[in-house]
């Protein structure tokens, strides 16, 4: 038994709740595309902007989106941070570059990480391409895109990226 003389000041009340998460219709289509090595966005019928990952609507116009658009897996870094502190939910080795990538043909940045490049060489405007898991290991989760790596193409000038910040 615990030390009787000492007053109790704390209690432990662990919580474990189990749920069955549903990805929703639009995101499921996107994830199944990922499972086939494709990045599928959706185009807004009103403003014609392309969203990825799609959530089934354009929040700007508040209308549903259905038109599917296959996107390139290449894009441009619009901004980034170098993460040097561990985070419980991320298993990428430190330090790593957390980046916003504007995929070619898309109108909002996609959040990912960059590897195969020293972190001090990551730049806004840098061209990058997705590195996928081997074809036979593709699954319908975003883990199928391991990370992005530099393509070596010339940087995109900042002027052209400003509006995506």
């Amino acid at each position: 038994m615990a030390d009787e003389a000492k007053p109790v000041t704390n209690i432990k009340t662990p919580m474990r709740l189990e749920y069955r998460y549903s990805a929703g219709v639009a995101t499921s289509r996107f994830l199944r595309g990922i499972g086939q090595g494709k990045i599928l966005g959706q185009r807004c019928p009103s403003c014609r902007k392309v969203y990825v990952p799609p959530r089934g609507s354009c929040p700007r116009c508040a209308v549903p989106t259905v038109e599917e658009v296959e996107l390139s897996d290449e894009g441009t870094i619009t901004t980034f941070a170098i993460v040097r502190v561990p985070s419980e939910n991320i298993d990428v080795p430190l330090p790593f570059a957390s980046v916003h990538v504007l995929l070619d043909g898309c109108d909002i940045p996609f959040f990912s990480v960059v590897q195969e490049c020293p972190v001090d060489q990551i730049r806004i405007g840098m061209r990058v391409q997705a590195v996928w898991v081997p074809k036979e290991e593709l699954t319908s989760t975003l883990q199928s895109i391991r990370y992005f790596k530099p393509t070596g193409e010339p940087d995109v000038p900042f002027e052209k990226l400003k509006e995506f910040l």
Partner: protein
Amino acid sequence: MAERCAIVGIGQTHHTARRDDVSIAGLLREAALRALDDAGLDWPDVDAVVIGKAPDMFEGVMMPELYLADALGAVGKPMLRVHTAGSVGGSTAIVAASLIQAGIHERVLTVAFEKQSESNAMWALTVKTPLQAAVVAGAGGYFAPLVRGYMQRSGAPEDTGIRVAVKDRANALKNPYAHIRDPNLTFDAIAGSPMLWDPIRFHETCPSSDGACAMVLTSERAIPRPKLAPAWVHSMAMRSEPTQFAGQEKINPVSGQMCAKEVYSKAGITDPRREIDAAEIYVPFSWFEPMWMENLGFAEVGQGWKMTYEGATALDGDLPVNCSGGVLSSNPIGASGMLRFAEAAMQVRGQAGEHQVDGAKIALGHAYGGGSQFFSMWIVGSARP
């Protein structure tokens, strides 16, 4: 049409990493009792209670207003629970003040809190979503790329963020309730602190705090005989925009710009930098001070950093910002916004002690939340509006 709303009582806890000596209810009651005492009122005098906090998962109590009703003397009264992410402390105060302005109640108690030590902020902010790949490391990981974008766009010197942190931590030394009160946080100490989410250094970030803030608001006819003259609500505004959409301006959000314009115009302010005597704004990462200076219309776009550099935002500057030490020095998340609103009111009541701005008559309280998408603001003054 609206009734005037007075702030007659303000209370807060000492903010610290772990308030191991109190229950959640005890933490809230400490702030609430200080506010009631400041107002010269007691529990039965209160007509309604409005409570706010950030995600319930921080403490693991779903809709804690239910469990806290008894603790806040709300039994038999109306009780509302607000949640608008990081801006919640501000929006909670706005909902409470609306009850007065609408003429529905005479005396409203409003309380906001977070007891982060019950769990860990990073967990509740980055719950892993199945089928997704986690690539954003908490709030710092989310906001760091925006800071980098600001640096690139404005050409601000790299030490701007350090200077903000030096100023806010020095201000915190004058605030007995602040969490981070460390005289050793000099320029060199902050510059030398580790990069967590490069370009954000450890000492350029806010702490995780346990804490609560409370205010008693009344109509003009119900003003008690408080020890101090009340602060008056001159105007309030809220604006929200979606999390992420094509063409979104993340660094200088349109929702923040619109919210500021509305709160100034309703208060009859045409030149905010000249007319506002003190501003308490939500700066969880030091670089957000220059960013919000621009968003709030105190500086031209791209020029906000100069205010920090020139000392304009210092306690003795022309627009003192975060005289209390701000979110950088105390961050009980759900309460942080209300602390901004309350500190603004303390300034115009002349109640801010060592961090008082001499003769402050008009002050701004500001809070933001989500991915820089929820804004709440109020202008308070020493004179009846």
